[in-house]
């Protein structure tokens, strides 16, 4: 590029350089600001989308009841949640199908005479209708069965009611007394755990009314 035949005086050149530097700083600040705002929207959007999906399922999904299974007494409560095990967490592999560990699959649901959900079939492809769950294959056992990782395996509770919740859940999940179950809302295969019931009462209500001293055990 040819130098200008009319160069600016030194003082003016310094002023122009300073202005250009300010503009460059302002431009880079604006770029950083825009980039940060986009990032902030993504960071907020991710948990928001989790909430939106679940709220839609809780409002418009169909409710199913799943019986819980007897639990290891030392494993029922981990940290701040009750670890749940469903009575039926296995499925028979249909003839001609093959599944492997970690694979995503669809568990077909039907409701039995007592009103509880059970898994009637397993497929690798999405079935027709609405009565199915998206699951993951936990492990494949030798006798043509697969163990399923169901998308509802924990119920969060306060640590203050932990001992009572653990005791109640354990007591009502034994082979002799088995009246603990969960309600789950399912929409297009997506499941959201709604409530844990013990003796036909939501667990918090069960705990607050079950204290033998007659005092409320809930905060």
């Amino acid at each position: 590029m040819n130098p200008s035949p009319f160069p600016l005086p030194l003082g003016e050149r310094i002023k122009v350089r300073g202005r250009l530097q300010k503009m460059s700083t302002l431009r880079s600040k604006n770029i950083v600001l825009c980039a940060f705002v986009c990032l902030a929207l993504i960071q907020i959007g991710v948990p928001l989308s989790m909430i939106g999906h679940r709220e839609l399922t809780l409002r418009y999904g169909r409710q199913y009841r799943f019986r819980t299974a007897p639990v290891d007494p030392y494993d029922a409560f981990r940290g701040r949640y009750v670890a749940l095990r469903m009575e039926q967490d296995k499925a028979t592999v249909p003839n001609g199908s093959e599944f492997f560990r970690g694979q995503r699959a669809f568990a077909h649901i039907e409701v039995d005479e007592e009103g509880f959900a059970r898994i009637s079939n397993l497929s690798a492809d999405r079935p027709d209708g609405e009565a199915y769950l998206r699951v993951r294959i936990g492990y494949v056992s030798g006798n043509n069965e697969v163990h399923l990782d169901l998308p509802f395996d924990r119920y969060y509770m306060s640590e203050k009611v932990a001992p009572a919740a653990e005791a109640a859940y354990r007591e009502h999940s034994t082979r002799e007394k088995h009246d603990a179950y969960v309600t789950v809302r399912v929409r297009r295969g997506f499941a959201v755990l709604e409530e844990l019931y013990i003796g036909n009462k939501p667990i918090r209500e069960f705990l607050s009314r079950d204290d033998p001293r007659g005092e409320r055990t809930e905060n």
Partner: protein
Amino acid sequence: MNKKFIRWLYGELPELVSRGVVSGDVAEKLREHYGDVEGQSGHRIALTVCSILGSLLIGAGIILLLAHNWEDLSRAVRTILAFTPLIVSQAIAIWGVRKGKSSSAWREGISTFIALAAGASIALVGQTYHISGDMGNFLLTWMLISVPLVYVMGASLPCVLYFAGITAWSGYEQEMGGYALLFWPLFMLGIPHIWQEWRKNPYSPRSVALGWAASLCLCVATGITLEKVVPGLWIIVYSAMFAVLYLAGGYWFSEVPSTAQRPLHSVGAVGIAVLSLLFTFEFPWKEIGWHHYRYGARFHEYVAWADYLLTTALPVCALCLLVTSVRRGQKSRILFGMMPIIAIIGYGLTVCGQDEFPAMMLFNAYMFALGLGTVIHGTRNLRIGTVNGGMLILTALIIARFFDSDLGFVARGIAFILIGAGFLVTNIILVKRAKGGSQ
């Protein structure tokens, strides 16, 4: 040049001028050449560390306060509270960017807080809706929404957290039979930032922290991501990886003697020594090679190409770096740098001969040479740390063989006394030589 050395030089200049070693003009020219050294760098580091710690503690405190009465709150209120730390920290960050705040203390602190708040918001939403415990998905989502902070805010601690997070994710993913191989493209997302910092100053606290984080994460994640359908390839992969780290560290980051400021070199050297010790035993060489190819649901053959790629590419890189180092006259690096060659020979001997003994003997000889060579190198260059490192390698080898052998307590006791005496005598000789040299 490292600012520590520049400060040392500036400290020496007045005495040199007063003794007439250099003139005042020369001293001024040296100051002009090296420029200002920020005398407050120690304060800046302390400020940055305090800022990060403060952010962590405030974030943890807020979460604990919210957790106190969490059960009494409705789902809507819990959701709002889950987002509050994140939104507030983002608002503070936007305010700071608009005000032109550029201090590293502020950037590191606020970026760390945002990264932690993002993870906390996802975790709290998970708790509110009793979301199933898929730790792998949670970690991956958290890391992917946090890593852009590294580039947008120019902060390094989120990058360190990111490396740790994706390493943990790869462990969970491999355990669940997923695609832990994705660790490698995820790891590459942090490399441009490391490159930027190394170009600015390869010995700054940031660059050093990033170097340590990346090296240690590679050490863990490499083994996790290997599919291992051909048993034993990890021997070559890890040997070559440590050699590459060692040689690259020596090639590009050799201006400072401090071990802590040369993470690649340090991790590589320690890795080579530890691996060599492992390979002097029988168990790593058992049932390796194509004859023991693994089948089954747990092993994905189509992903094993990554194992073969690493087994080929890493030794080639190590060899290129070794040749380059030798051409530069850094012959002291040969012993450590040739580890992948020894590993390949050992692997070949075991697979072809179906016998572990030759490889074990080879590595016993190699480790002995490694220790002895390190001691000699340290003695020649009057580096007590290097001599002690070499003695440690020899001691580890001797102790390992003692546990293998049938020698009695007396013989072992005498040997340990001799080794300990050897340490002490060598150190005394070196210290005397160093003092004699300085006089």
